């Protein structure tokens, strides 16, 4: 019996994209979202989402770290001594985060300055270590990689959603600080909707609450509410 399974394993292609793999990507986007369902990684979700552009950069960084730390952990999983597995996982995560940090520093220094400590804090993001412990230590490399990417995407989707709401209503712009900055609503002719000269919007002012970290908590709370109202299987019946 054991021989048959090993033979079957050998025939399996290393990279495939079947139903299980698609589920690994799709699940964290909704049913098992790391932020709205597992409520992990909240710290950075509150801190970096006042603008969309840093949220996007942060999401890409987390997707990269999650994907590759899962891949490497899974590749090493049968060699990692069980007694020190968490230290080994941390070494892998920390080195990947350092790679992100060094790359950002030489590619886009202003955004590196803006995200400051939060890039380094990816090391302590519970989503990363959670996925390594829960999935990568027990699964094959390709699936672990997909699981990491999927969870990173789930995290990023919420980050970007929150960032968009906060920036549009808090600053009246989108992608501020990036080359494709859009000025949407504000008190000058640079904006699409000019609140000074457009009579319809003369009452409008940016909501300063949106810029504060507390706003991210309200928005994430509302997102969780919306998600659970149509996805009823997530609701605890107790």
């Amino acid at each position: 019996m054991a021989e048959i399974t090993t033979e079957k394993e050998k025939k399996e292609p290393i990279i495939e994209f079947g139903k299980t793999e698609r589920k690994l990507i799709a699940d964290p986007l909704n049913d098992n979202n790391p932020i709205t369902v597992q409520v992990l990684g909240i710290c950075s979700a509150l801190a970096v989402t006042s603008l969309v552009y840093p949220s996007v950069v942060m999401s890409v960084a987390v997707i990269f770290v999650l994907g590759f730390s899962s891949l490497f952990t899974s590749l090493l999983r049968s060699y990692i001594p069980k007694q020190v597995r968490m230290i080994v996982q941390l070494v892998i995560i920390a080195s990947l985060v350092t790679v992100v940090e060094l790359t950002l520093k030489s590619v886009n220094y202003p955004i590196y300055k803006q995200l400051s400590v939060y890039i380094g804090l990816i090391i302590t993001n519970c989503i990363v270590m959670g996925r390594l412990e829960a999935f990568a230590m027990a699964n094959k490399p390709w699936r672990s990689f997909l699981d990491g990417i999927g969870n990173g995407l789930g995290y990023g989707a919420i980050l970007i959603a929150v960032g968009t709401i906060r920036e549009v209503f808090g600053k009246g712009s989108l992608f501020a600080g990036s080359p494709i900055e859009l000025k949407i609503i504000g008190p000058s002719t640079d904006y699409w909707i000019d609140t000074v000269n457009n009579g319809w919007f003369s009452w409008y002012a940016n909501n300063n609450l949106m810029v504060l970290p507390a706003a991210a908590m309200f928005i994430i709370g509302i997102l969780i509410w919306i998600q659970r109202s149509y996805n009823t299987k997530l609701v605890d019946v107790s």
Partner: protein
Amino acid sequence: MQSTNYIIGFIIALTAIVAVALTGLREATKTKAALNEEIFDKRAVLSAVEDYLPEGKQVGDLSDQEVVETFNQQVEQKVLNMEGKVVPGMDAEDIVMAKERKLPEPQRKLPLYIYNQDGNKFYIIAVRGNGLWDEIWGFIALESDLNTIAGASFDHQGETPGLGAEIKDNPGFAEQFQGKKIFENGNYVSVKVMKGGAKDEEHQVDGISGATVTCDGVTEMLQRGIEYYLPYFNTIRQQGMLVQ
């Protein structure tokens, strides 16, 4: 359960591989990162004289190359000691304000950037102080009368977004400093950030609601930071009088 030797061997091998890989990456990106940091700092200095940049440009519009060129052609760098004497052989950019702040006051050195544009001289000084959570700093440009503020730029380490961080994020805050005077009838008074709005047009600017501690930090930083440069300013004034 693996043997202790295996565990030690595994950890040593893993850290060795990681260390080599990261050192390699760091070495490969070091020059570019240092250059980026230098340009970032130069932009911060230039944003204090944003209204006087060549061709009416803003700091954000300048390419990295233009920033370096403007700096090389129009900015003169000096380092002063606390008695207001020029320290020879040093560039203002060599001074790390965060380190200077840790020294006892008499030993500190002060960076000074003199920006020349269309025959006008602007004296850009560096100030650094404490905000609510961490350090705040900025550059203040003074016109050649050494009294009128031509512009200011601020930055911070960890002020609250939407509150204290507005000293940097809201360009309107720094703009208020333009045209303010640091002397009143020949006495040094600095410029104050006032909770509840400025009452004295010449020496006060409006504070930010909800960010009183950061604003008081700015006031304190300016009061002390500008004062450090006064001995040097007195020297140039006296020299100026001799020439006249």
